[in-house]
């Protein structure tokens, strides 16, 4: 069999991505149909930039979801004779089968690894960003609202973390040695507590006027939260439902740690601006609690910039994860995530560029999509 030509390679890849195309079509058809009823999300479909960004992001999200249907080979499987094979090479011994984007230095299929890498990246980046946001919001709201000593102390800590060059921090925080000392677990214990506290305070401040409801909601949230907390931070979940690989925990915690101070600064700045508004004064006059005002009056009014920053930050987190993979920090050697695949491929870059270029383009398109999406959201949220 001959090596495939580039049009044939793209054709075959397009066929492999069929489930993604169908899902994209359905999403777009439904969203455009009902865009007037979908709020900010619907407005996104009024701007070309926003739609392009959303399409790119949705493409990778669906790829991550349907990864098992898309891959042509096991991302870890090695076929003899396929070492550094050029894109479109027929696999040895099998009829009508190709390494669509070639093989890497261990004779694994680059295409399948790229697809599986999307799943890994999209499993970590948004989750880490959400946790970072909850930490940043929970600390930024009181710092901006109360000011004073609390603000000074928290801002000092945030600036300390921000003054670290990110790579140095990663080299100090993501090492096999540090795992022995238990620092990642301690950090996780602190950082993962914030989402639980955030949700509980959020519900408590809303429903504290009717105790039965409050007890039900806060109780449920606390039990569920602490259950997940025990499993994720300490790996002590009795049912084994929540657990996290120590490697992954280390990476996850350091990414959250790097992102949270920036979120803190943004939230703090916005609260300082918003707390002089009339609706805050009205709430104070009504005798509302401080946390109610912060969480249910100020926070919803700050949502526009926060959503935009959230999109940008997922992209930034993706870049950070790629950086970690690129330096081989905290990832298992055969993991298909994009950063470490680029790192693997760069050694033979000037002779066989394809194993490194494919994940590089994938990462770039995802981050570009997120940035365009953020841009579209910013434009649309400014419009009203």
């Amino acid at each position: 069999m001959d090596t495939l030509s580039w049009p044939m390679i793209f054709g075959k890849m397009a066929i492999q991505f069929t489930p993604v195309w169908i899902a994209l079509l359905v999403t777009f058809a439904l969203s455009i149909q009902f865009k007037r009823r979908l709020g900010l999300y619907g407005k996104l479909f009024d701007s070309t930039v926003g739609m392009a960004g959303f399409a790119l992001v949705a493409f990778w999200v669906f790829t991550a979801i349907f990864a098992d249907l898309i891959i042509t080979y096991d991302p870890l499987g090695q076929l003899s004779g396929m070492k550094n094979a050029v894109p479109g090479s027929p696999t040895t011994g099998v009829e009508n089968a190709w390494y669509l984007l070639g093989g890497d230095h261990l004779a694994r299929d680059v295409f399948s690894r790229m697809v599986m890498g999307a799943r890994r990246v999209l499993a970590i980046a948004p989750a880490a960003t959400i946790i970072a946001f909850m930490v940043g919001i929970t600390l930024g709201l009181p710092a901006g609202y109360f000011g004073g000593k609390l603000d000074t102390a928290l801002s000092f800590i945030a600036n300390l973390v921000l003054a670290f060059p990110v790579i140095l921090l990663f080299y100090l925080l993501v090492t096999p040695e540090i795992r022995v000392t238990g620092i990642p677990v301690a950090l996780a214990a602190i950082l993962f507590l914030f989402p639980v506290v955030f949700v509980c305070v959020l519900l408590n401040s809303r429903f504290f006027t009717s105790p039965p409801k409050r007890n039900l909601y806060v109780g449920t949230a606390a039990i569920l939260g602490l259950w997940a907390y025990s499993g994720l931070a300490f790996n002590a979940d009795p049912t084994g439902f929540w657990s996290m690989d120590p490697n992954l925990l280390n990476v996850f915690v350091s990414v959250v740690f790097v992102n949270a101070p920036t979120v803190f600064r943004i939230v703090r700045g916005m609260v300082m601006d918003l707390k002089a508004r009339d609706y805050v004064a009205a709430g104070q006059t009504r005798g509302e609690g401080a946390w109610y005002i912060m969480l249910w009056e100020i926070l919803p009014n700050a949502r526009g910039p926060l959503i935009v920053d959230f999109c940008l930050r997922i992209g930034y987190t993706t870049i950070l994860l790629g950086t970690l993979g690129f330096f081989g920090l905290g990832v298992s050697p055969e993991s298909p995530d994009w950063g470490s695949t680029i790192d693997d491929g760069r050694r033979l870059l000037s002779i066989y560029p394809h194993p490194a270029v494919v994940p590089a383009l994938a990462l770039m398109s995802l981050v570009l999509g997120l940035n365009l999406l953020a841009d579209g959201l910013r434009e649309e949220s400014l419009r009203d």
Partner: protein
Amino acid sequence: MYLFLLRRVGLMLLTALSLSFIVFCLTNLAPNLEKLARTEGSVRMTDDDVANWVIQNGHGGSMVSRYGEWLGVVPGWVLTDEKGVTRGRCLQGGLTVESAPRFCGIFQGNWGTSTVFREPVLKTVTNKLAATGWLMFWVMMVMVPTALVLGVLSGMREGSRTDRVLSTFAIASTATPEYVSGVILIAFLGSATAGISPVLSSWGWIEGRTLFQGTATSAMDKITFWNFALPVITIALYGIGYIARMTRASMTEVMTQQYIRTARLKGVSFRQIIIKHALRNALIAPFTVIMLQFPWLLNGVVIVETLFNYKGFGWTLVQAAGNNDIQLLLGCSVVAVFVVLITQLISDIGYVFLNPRIRLS
């Protein structure tokens, strides 16, 4: 004004102290010291031997006192082991207990010895910083003018076709981290099998096998356009987008101001308005952004020096961290942290000086 300066500098020093203490703790963790003992002593040491080695080499006391010794505010350790050999922090180079100075930390210029390069850390760091200095210099020379021109061009007529094209370029460049753009640039311009080099080579337009060189190792001796262009562009590209977007935002804001309208109404040409009235005011905000870009440039430097095998500061940091070279890593961290803090300070002070609307009484 002086009070403001004093407060800023004081805060910076406090931050620097806290940060260096954190770095000191994180590099001198027990497992790191154990690993150091096994590489410096012997691999077959028992656990007791290791513990003994750690204490005998002055890594025994509390973290705070060791940090003090390292800084040079606490007298250096002196220990005599059971064989009667006296060793101490300050007893290097044939000095005896009597003749050696009591304090020898970084304040006294003693940054320790690198276990990878087998030379004083201070020497390694200064040598490598010089190499990185050239890289940074050319990055700045490429990045700042390009970004400012792009930003001003797209900001002076908001919403025009130029603006949209340039903005899209800016977004794309911020979405491309160094390890991605570097890989793509090497594959496209510096690879013997892919991109444009094979074509140019077969046409006989270039002498070697590739147009640009995919490594910058030769730039350590002599910097040429062909071996230095790719690393410089790789770092600059990521910053260009960001600075251009900030410049654009500040330029569009300035263009809506009253004095610009006044100038137009009195018949000043568009060109004159941009150069005389808009530019100066629009470039205040990007100044801060450019200064705050330094920490990120530091990241770029580490990635690019690793990718292009350019033996500068970033490469050294990776070597130090990868080989558990505690003293060198500490030295690199201190330099990195100081670079970040000083640029923050300059950007704060510069902003106050540049912006006539801020008056500190």
